[in-house]
């Protein structure tokens, strides 16, 4: 017998329920303190020169928060870009391709920033 329960069990058309909605809120909340930290870190160290800048960003706490920021912001960005693509790109093939590129873009940013942060953190 078909009841509304079937829809709940199937978690909707994408079979993922409110997962994306929730993840966007989760990363949004995390992004507030993380972004404030990153922005203020950079703003208060403008013009200090290469050595002092590297010294600051090699501190473990700073490196860890930077990593957390990059990961949280990239997930948030991927969901947001996905939302925009789904709203405006209607050709199915192009839409899938755009979503694919958005994922690669977000992953590339995490890997590039993450590698740089770790390299600075380990002082190499």
């Amino acid at each position, binding site marked *: 017998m078909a009841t509304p329960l079937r829809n709940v069990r199937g978690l909707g058309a994408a079979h993922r329920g409110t997962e994306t909605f929730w993840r966007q*809120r989760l990363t949004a909340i995390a992004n507030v303190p993380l972004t404030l930290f990153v922005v203020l870190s950079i703003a208060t160290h403008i013009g200090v020169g*290469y050595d002092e800048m590297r010294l600051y960003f090699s501190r473990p706490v700073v490196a860890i928060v930077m990593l957390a920021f990059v990961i949280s912001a990239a997930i948030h960005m991927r969901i947001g870009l996905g939302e*925009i693509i789904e709203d405006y790109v209607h050709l199915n093939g192009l839409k899938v391709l755009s979503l694919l590129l958005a994922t690669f873009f977000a992953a590339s940013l995490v890997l*590039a920033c993450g*590698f740089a942060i770790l390299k600075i953190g380990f002082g190499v």
Partner: protein
Amino acid sequence: MSQGKVEAGRPLSPHLQIYRPMLTMMMSIAHRITGASLAIGFCLLAWWLIALAAGPQQFWHAEAFFASIPGRLLLFLFSWALILHMLGGIRHLIWDTGTGLDKKSIEIFAWGTLLGSITLTILLWLVGYCIRGSL
């Protein structure tokens, strides 16, 4: 999907063009535009981090760009976009709790997001310049 219906010449429901521009609408659009543009801002951060990791020479190149007038203008706009998107996001998180959805509140939120973002961006740059001690 709906393509067959459009071909049949049925009218589409009116969209943005029939509405008088309102601040709440503008702030909603601004939230999306700033969000998308911050993806480019993310690339600038990545470039700066990679330059810092790569060495003094590469870092000097990145710093020279950000210290230039176009570089500073770009950073100013991105910092404004970031703060606007953050305040707009906090507004959305408040709405998610089911509060602040009445006509008066959304108007206050829209003005708060706009004026708050301008104030905080200018404040951030003043603090930055004060700490640096020079232009």
